[in-house]
């Protein structure tokens, strides 16, 4: 399914290379459109919002967006190398590893795609995890993670939803 025909407009986006400004922590700042050709997706960052991706030669799995101290959004892709087989299994494995409590499952959208969602509490943080699995290359997970505190939950959730809505799949490289 992921190898669907690509919209012509998308061809222009593929060539968008993130701004090469390196941060003090060694990550690369990204503005505008973040494209991940290896896992086949892109997202559009709202004006004034910057993301960070790992600097080469580290693998490029996704982007991290700082919303404030201890508050982040992560959007990325990875293979189903742990052989989990489903979005729900991925969510459960992640939340189990984090000793999450108050877990509530639901459905959400990742761009135009229906994805699994879980909201949970980890320590003093609220976490919302949205996962979509695709059956390509042995399985690919797209994951979006909101980590925030109770005080900023409503506001950060809105930003999170905006970012989720800009998610698009693209062809994986041949």
């Amino acid at each position, binding site marked *: 399914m992921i190898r669907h025909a690509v919209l012509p407009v998308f061809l222009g986006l593929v060539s968008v*290379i*993130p701004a*090469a400004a390196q941060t003090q*922590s*060694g*990550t*690369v700042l990204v503005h505008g459109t973040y*494209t*991940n*050709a*290896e896992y086949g997706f892109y997202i559009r960052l709202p004006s004034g919002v910057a993301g*960070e*991706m*790992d*600097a*080469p*030669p*580290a*693998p*490029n*799995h*996704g*982007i*991290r967006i700082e919303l404030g101290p201890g508050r*982040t959004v*992560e*959007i*990325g892709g*990875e*293979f*189903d*190398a*742990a*052989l*989990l087989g489903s979005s729900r299994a991925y969510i459960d*494995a*992640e939340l189990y*590893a*984090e000793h999450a409590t108050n877990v509530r499952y639901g459905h959400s959208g990742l761009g135009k795609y229906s994805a699994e969602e879980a909201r949970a509490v980890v320590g003093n943080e609220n976490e919302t995890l949205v996962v979509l699995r695709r059956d390509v*290359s*042995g*399985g*690919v997970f797209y*994951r979006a*993670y909101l*980590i925030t505190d109770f005080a900023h939950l409503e506001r950060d959730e809105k930003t999170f939803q905006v970012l989720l809505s800009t998610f698009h799949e693209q062809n*994986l*490289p*041949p």
Partner: protein
Amino acid sequence: MAQRLGTNEDLILALSAFEDSWGQDAHNKKLHNIFGITQAGGNNLSFTSYQACCDYWERHYGNAVRNVQNIKTFAANLRKLGYNSANSNYDATLNLVYQAVIRYKKSCAVK
């Protein structure tokens, strides 16, 4: 490579499985890139052989995992060098892959 670095080969296998989907990813296969190594701009690098890819990885990351014997330290040391900062749960994720490698080797009776 694991012997040279004095590390557990299963840790290297787990990382490779994570980055190229147990060798199932056609693109990385074509590139001989079993570690998801990138170039400027974020796309994966092409190598002339799997050995060339391993040599490259060892040059850049070998010291970070030298003599490391457990997945927790392995993942933490790679993270310090900027590995997968887009996944705050990377250590746990890689641990799951490591456990899958152990299970797979047992099921195949590989030593």
